């Protein structure tokens, strides 16, 4: 094999392309000239130690932070999101680490939170509960495995089921890029396997998935592309098929540079 024509490099433009993204909070340089990309139909993993800038980067992509400099292109167009709502409009959904679910509301209410379907009754807008429940059932059944009942309150769901609800919400509504921040950090072995199944299903549907994970075995299992961050910089990218867990660990710790 020659230098490194990354094995399995796909053709075509990436869906998300970050180029030279930098962001500082006061004197803390959280992101320094970060360039990476994500493609549709692929799981793109971002790994790195705590404080490496993974979450900050994700927050830039999902519209929470605005980079000081650099470009974020989505679907070939330069973005300038002012809020997470703008990013959602564009088709970028984020599954937050805390899941952003409301425990006292039902599964279907959570799936449609702030995107409720309404019927017009003269000047009034009335919730179309029936339509939302039916659609919610479709949304959760499509992603299969241990489907929670759409009428149960989230409070009564297991950790894995909650994660599934949050992922379903991100996958619905014609999103194209789904960002997941440590989706299995709080789960047991079985539930982790189920959620990984869900993430694969998302990819197979054609979504671009961006996965932040500390679990290198999981990254190797799931992803097609790995980007490694260290101290606010993106220090390397590999096609997963052409790398090993050891190489990624070496990149993360700085034993290996590029």
């Amino acid at each position, binding site marked *: 094999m020659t230098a490194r024509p990354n094995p399995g490099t796909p053709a075509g433009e990436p869906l998300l392309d970050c180029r030279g993204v930098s962001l500082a909070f006061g004197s803390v340089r959280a992101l320094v000239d970060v360039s990476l990309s994500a493609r549709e139909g692929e799981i793109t993993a971002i790994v790195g130690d705590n404080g490496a800038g993974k979450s900050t980067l994700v927050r830039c992509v999902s519209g929470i932070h605005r980079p000081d400099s650099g470009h974020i292109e989505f679907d070939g167009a330069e973005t300038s999101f002012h809020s997470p*709502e703008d990013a959602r409009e564009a088709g970028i959904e984020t599954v937050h680490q805390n899941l952003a679910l409301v*425990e006292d*509301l039902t599964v279907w209410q959570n799936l449609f939170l702030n995107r409720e379907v309404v019927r017009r009754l003269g000047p009034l807008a009335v*919730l179309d509960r029936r339509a939302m429940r039916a659609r919610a*059932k479709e949304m959760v059944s499509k992603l*299969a495995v241990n489907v929670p009942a759409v009428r149960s309150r989230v*409070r009564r769901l297991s950790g894995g089921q909650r994660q599934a609800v949050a992922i379903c919400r991100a996958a619905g509504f014609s999103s194209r890029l789904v960002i997941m921040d440590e989706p299995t950090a709080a789960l047991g072995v079985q539930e982790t396997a189920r959620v990984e199944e869900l993430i694969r299903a998302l990819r197979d549907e054609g979504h671009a998935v961006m996965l932040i994970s500390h679990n290198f075995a999981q990254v190797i299992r799931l992803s097609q592309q790995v980007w490694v961050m260290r101290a606010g910089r993106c220090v390397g990218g590999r096609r997963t098929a052409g790398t090993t867990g050891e190489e990624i660990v070496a990149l993360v710790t700085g034993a290996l540079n590029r």
Partner: protein
Amino acid sequence: MANATLAADDREPWTSRLRDAGFWAEWAALVGLVVLVVVFQVLNPTFLSTGNIASMLLAAAILIVLAVGQTFVIATAGIDLSIASTMTLGAVVLGQAYSAPWGLPLSCLLAVVAAALAGMVNGVIIAWGRIADFIVTLGMLSAASGLALILADGKPVTIIDPALLALSTGGLGIFGWSFVIAVVVALVAHAVLFHTRFGTHLLATGGAPESARAMGISTQRVKIAVYTISGTLAGLAAILLVARIGAAEPASNTSFLLNSVAAVVLGGVSLFGGRGTIIGPVIGALLLVALVNGLTLLGVSQFYQPLAVGVVVVLAALLTRFQR
């Protein structure tokens, strides 16, 4: 649809619900009301006479309207301690405008607007100033009753108006107009809470403000809205109050504040926000009125009534620990 869990989508059967402590906790007010009615009826057969029922419903009207307003606030994990003095302010505005004389419709409108403004001030300070609800509304409790005293110069205004008289004496059978109005308010509130986007956002704001914000809900706007609603309903209650006592007094009405919170707690609304009903606090308000009315019928000294109300409310709060 290969999943077995999907078939179990429908609610659990009611028989299994009956064995659940949580079910009883949620319906504590209804159970308490039924028990009270049976006990009082056994001890004094005039309790369930048409006349007494009519007078109880009439007496409950103001409390129901206030409790509905308080429910909106408590469902967002807040509390409106100024609700009763805002009502007093509304009543005094009504009295002053009426004796100006600007006519009853305009006077009533001004009363509601004044109370709504007081509520909105609460909401804006809480949402934008990020100050604890009970501090802000405690301040408004004092400010609104002070304003009422200033406006009225400390003196009550007697209001004799045929329309207001009809409000407190006429009605549909045993249902006085005041009670009918309270029921309409409750029905509209139920529709708003469970059949509008605002209602869902309100419950989300109360239950998990972080999550609500992450999903793009403006929790600040929700907060301002609920305190404005609470103030508006306090203004409506002011009209019912003036109709009932035939005068606009700058009195403190503290018992209405305590009872509005009590009715909401009895109604199974979580003080931590995020969950609640409208029917619960309505039944809670009826229970409190039935309790006081029954004790009076039995000839128990008035001094015992606050004690009884206090005991019932704390018992109800204990029961809510069993809520699911």
